[in-house]
C-alpha cells in the first residue's frame, strides 16, 4: 500500500500540475458543466491534493463525471489545470490491476445502432488501462 504522501506526489507527477499555485478563486468549479454531479468539486480537488487526502479522491465519483471539456483549464487564471489533476487521480485508479471503470463486456449493453466509434474509443481510453 502506497502512502498518502507518495500518492499525492504521483498525482503531481502524472498531471504535471503544481497545486500550490491555486488561489482558490473557484472559477474552475463555476465553469464546470458537471459541477452538480460532483461530490468533490474541481477547486476542492486541488486542496485535497495539497492536503494529501488521496483516499477521498480515488473514491470520489467526480473522477467519472469529468468530461475533459477543458473549461476549467481554459479559465484558470493561475494555470493550475484542475482537469489534469482529476485525470491523474483517475489514472492512479485504473492503472491498478482490476480497477477499470469500463469493461469490454459492458459495452454491448451500452450502445445503440448510431453509437459512433469515437464514443467507444474515448470512453475506453478515459476509463480503463
Amino acid at each position, binding site marked *: 500500500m502506497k502512502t498518502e504522501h507518495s500518492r499525492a506526489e504521483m498525482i503531481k507527477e502524472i498531471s504535471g500540475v503544481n497545486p500550490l499555485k491555486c488561489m482558490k478563486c473557484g472559477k474552475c468549479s463555476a465553469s464546470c458543466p458537471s459541477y452538480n454531479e460532483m461530490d468533490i468539486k474541481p477547486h476542492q480537488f486541488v486542496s485535497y491534493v495539497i492536503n494529501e487526502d488521496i483516499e477521498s479522491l480515488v473514491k470520489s465519483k467526480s473522477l*467519472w463525471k469529468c468530461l*475533459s471539456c477543458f473549461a476549467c483549464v481554459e479559465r484558470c487564471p493561475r494555470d493550475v489545470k484542475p482537469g489534469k489533476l482529476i485525470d491523474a487521480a483517475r489514472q492512479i485508479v485504473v492503472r491498478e490491476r482490476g480497477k477499470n471503470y*469500463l469493461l469490454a463486456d459492458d459495452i454491448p449493453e*451500452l450502445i445503440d445502432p448510431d453509437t459512433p*466509434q469515437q464514443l*467507444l474509443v474515448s470512453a475506453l*481510453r478515459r476509463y480503463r488501462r
Partner: protein
Amino acid sequence: MKYSYFPGCTLKNKAVDLDHYARVSAEALGFELEEISEWQCCGGVYPLGTDEIATKLASVRALNDAKEHGQDLVTVCSACHHVIKRVNDDMKNVDDIRTRANNYMKLDEPYAGETTVLHYLEVLRDRVGFDELKKKVVKPLTGKKIGAYYGCLLLRPGKLMAFDDPENPTIMEDFIRAIGAEPVIYPYRNECCGGYISLKEEDMSKNMCRKIEESAAGFGADMLITACPLCMYNLNKNNGGNLPVYYFTELLAEALGLKEEVDEQ
C-alpha cells in the same frame, strides 16, 4: 494544393457523410485530401498524463508520415484534430515525450513537431479564404438561420489549439455567412455536449444537450452545425428532433451544388 488527410475511425464508419462531403467539396475548392496510408485511430481523447507515451504514437506516426510527404496534415473530425494537434505540441515542446516517443519509433530522422496541423475549417479560412469560398457558392443557403455548435475540442485549451478565440469564436459564423446563410450567436455554443459521458451517464449528456438546444432555439436558430461525430450523436439523441443538426461539410457541399452528387454515390 495537396494535404495529408487523417480521416479517423468514425469518418470511415458512422460519420461517412462528414468525410464524403469534405472530400468532394475540397476538390471543387481546389485542394486535395490525400489519405495517409495505414493511419491508426488517434484514440478519441488526448492522453493527459505527462507519462503517457504509447497512447500518443498513432498520432506521431500520422504526423511523421505527413512530414515525409512534405505536406500539412488536415483533419475534419474535431476529436482527431484535438488529439493530433496536442501530440504535435508535445513533440515540439516537451523534451521527455519527444525523446521517448522517438525511442519507440526508431525513425530515420527523429520527429520533432515539424508538421503543421490544420482543421478543415482552418483550411477554408486561412488557405482558401472565406471570400473565395463565397465566390464558388452556386446554391447559397439564403434565409437559413444556423447556430454554430463549436463544443470543446476545437477551441480548448485556447493557446495550444490556436483555432480561434476560445470564448468568443467567429470561424464557424464566418463560414455560415460564406455559404449564404445567417449565423445565430447563442451563449451555449462552446459548452460541452457531455462527450464520452453519454456512454455510462446518459442523463448528464441529456441535460447538457437540452441546454445547448434551448439556448440556440431561443436565439432563433433553426438548425445547428458541428464538426464532431460525437457532438452530433449526443445532440441528435437528446433533442427529440426539434432542432436538426448537420455536419458543416454537408451544408458546404450543398452550397457548392455538390450534395446530390455525393448522395447518389
